[in-house]
């Protein structure tokens, strides 16, 4: 098993004919992902790596039975793209796009909930269940099949950690990038609940960073509902207050969202914390 995505996902790519779209459709196909359709208004009839392009999401869904959308469109068109996918009946949406105004994200996250759809992102690298599917831009070469579930607010840091796991022969059930924005669809709690239920997952890795209270909320959830071992890394111990550290969501605002508070919360929930990102692999090796 795995969480959120597996072999049943038939992927439609919104923003398929751009530079990134073409490249990542190829990468996903190489990984074994069922990419069935692409959408770019005005380009119906074209193909990208053999994948047919449609003018709108509904046409793509009708022709191919796509049930999942990967959103790669520029920030100012993202809200429209997600609404369109939801209205076409898509039930799993992964939003890679960065710099989406959070008021837009707030609207489409609530609409996805109303439509009973899973929304991952925005500002995330996507999700992969190695051996089954990869929907997003995670580099396929670092992923491997196994029993560790990874959920992260940061892209490259996840790659670093997953790669160090691979070097020790530790694979992943699912690796999900939740996104670095203040408003995201799927949170640590959603991922924890799913990993706890998933039979294939034996241990869980959380990669957090400064800003907001997602880690503190996760710690409370772990205390109550999670029996599997949880390992974590928090980035930004030395980040100053009031500065946006790259990610829109990575900001200590009015004293809230410090790494210290998150580390404390995780310690209280018996989560094993790594000092350096690559230490996660050592911790898991020792404890499993």
């Amino acid at each position, binding site marked *: 098993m795995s969480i959120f995505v597996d072999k049943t996902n038939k992927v439609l790519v919104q923003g398929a004919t751009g530079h990134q779209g073409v490249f990542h459709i190829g990468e996903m196909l190489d990984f074994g992902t069922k990419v069935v359709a692409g959408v770019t208004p005005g380009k119906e009839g074209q193909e990208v790596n053999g994948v047919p392009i449609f003018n709108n999401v509904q046409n793509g869904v009708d022709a191919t039975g796509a049930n999942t959308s990967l959103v790669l469109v520029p*920030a*100012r068109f993202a809200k429209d793209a997600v609404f369109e996918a939801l209205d076409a009946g898509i039930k799993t949406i992964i939003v890679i796009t960065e*710099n*989406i*105004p*959070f*008021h837009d994200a*707030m*609207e489409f*996250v*609530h*609409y996805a909930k109303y439509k009973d759809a899973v929304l991952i992102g925005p500002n995330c*690298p996507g999700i992969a269940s190695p051996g089954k599917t990869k929907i997003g*831009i*995670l*580099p396929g*070469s*670092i992923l491997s099949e196994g029993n560790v579930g990874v959920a*992260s*607010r*940061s*892209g*490259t*840091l*996840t*790659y*670093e950690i997953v*790669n160090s796991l691979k070097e020790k022969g530790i694979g992943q059930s699912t690796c999900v990038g939740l996104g*670095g924005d*203040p*408003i995201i669809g799927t949170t640590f709690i959603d991922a924890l609940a799913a990993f706890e239920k998933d039979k294939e997952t034996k241990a869980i890795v959380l*990669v957090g*960073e*400064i800003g*907001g*209270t*997602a880690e503190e*909320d996760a710690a409370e959830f772990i205390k109550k509902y999670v029996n599997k071992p949880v390992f974590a*890394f928090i*980035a*930004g*111990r*030395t*980040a*100053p207050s009031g*500065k*946006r*550290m*790259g*990610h*829109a*969501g*990575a900001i200590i605002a*009015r*004293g809230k969202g410090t*790494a210290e508070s998150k580390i404390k919360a995780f310690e209280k929930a018996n989560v094993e914390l790594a*000092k*350096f*990102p*690559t230490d996660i692999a050592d911790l898991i090796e020792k404890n499993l």
Partner: protein
Amino acid sequence: MKLFEYRGKELFDKYDIAVPKGNIVTGEKDFTALKFPIILKAQVPIGGRGKAGGIKKAKDINEAKDNLSQIMGMDIRGFKVGKVLAEETADIKKELYLSISLDRTKKMPLIMASVEGGMEIESVPDNKIFKEWINPLIGIQAFNIRNIVSKLKFGKEETTEISKVLRKIYKLFREYDCELVEINPLIITKDGNIMAIDSKIIINDDAMYRHTDIQPELVELTALEKDAKDKGISFVQLGGNIGVIANGAGLTMATLDALNHFKGEGGVFLDLGGTDDPEKVKQAFELMKKAKPKVIFLNLFGGITKCDTVATGVKSVISKEGIDCPVVTRIKGMREEEAKEILKDAGLITATTLQDAAQRSSDLAGGKKL
């Protein structure tokens, strides 16, 4: 982006929320339209300016001129005062706190109200702050407003006025993509009028493109940070002397943390993000040079951003202009070998692990020789 108080009040005025009569003052002529006594307020993008002496009353023009010359140019927690707002004073009967912010956990706009107006909200006990969350898909409804105002326990006419302000600030919050709209205090005057005495508005940086009427002030950024912003590079200046270049916000932060572990201190946070353009890397590296760090630490994990792309950009700067500080590199991931080949003769220090690279950078920055 934080708006200055007077800019926020211009927006309040646009949304028909009353503010005291006032204007920006630079000299004697600017006071002629105002009725004394007045209040002079330093325009800075942080709180606590009253305690720092940035707010002063004046009963006549002479006192106003004196106070203006004292406030102008004053340093308030690192911000030099360049603008001063003068306003007529109001007779306060009651004051309250009102704000709308983003609740990241509930993913909704959060209205907060308190009768403890005029105090910093962080120092108000939780049981004295009333909260109401608004579903962004349906917007503010009458029941939301009833839930809030019923707890404030004001008279009927006052309650009606506060309700109107709530609707107006919600509209402002949504239409201007705000992270925060705060009125503290919102007052009711002795003659029963409602008025916003202060304004604190933050607009989401990612939405600035659709608010072309808002002049970005960028007072919180250094000259290099402004330059970086124009070039679309994520760049933050910090207190230390090691310049960190990495790809991805999380990895860049983790690199700064690793330096701290070895007693090094980051001077620049530079996140290359996901790029496949050596030209952008070149611009980033040039910016880093301008920040004059004692050591540059390049930490790459290649994925979407390929290691050789970054290496090409870095190499082109070094071979053209040279480099006058040590550069420690740690390169891993997609096209790692190609990158190492490109940088082979550039005179850089190479390390294999993050820990090793962080230690070497820290030692070099502290003056040790390798």
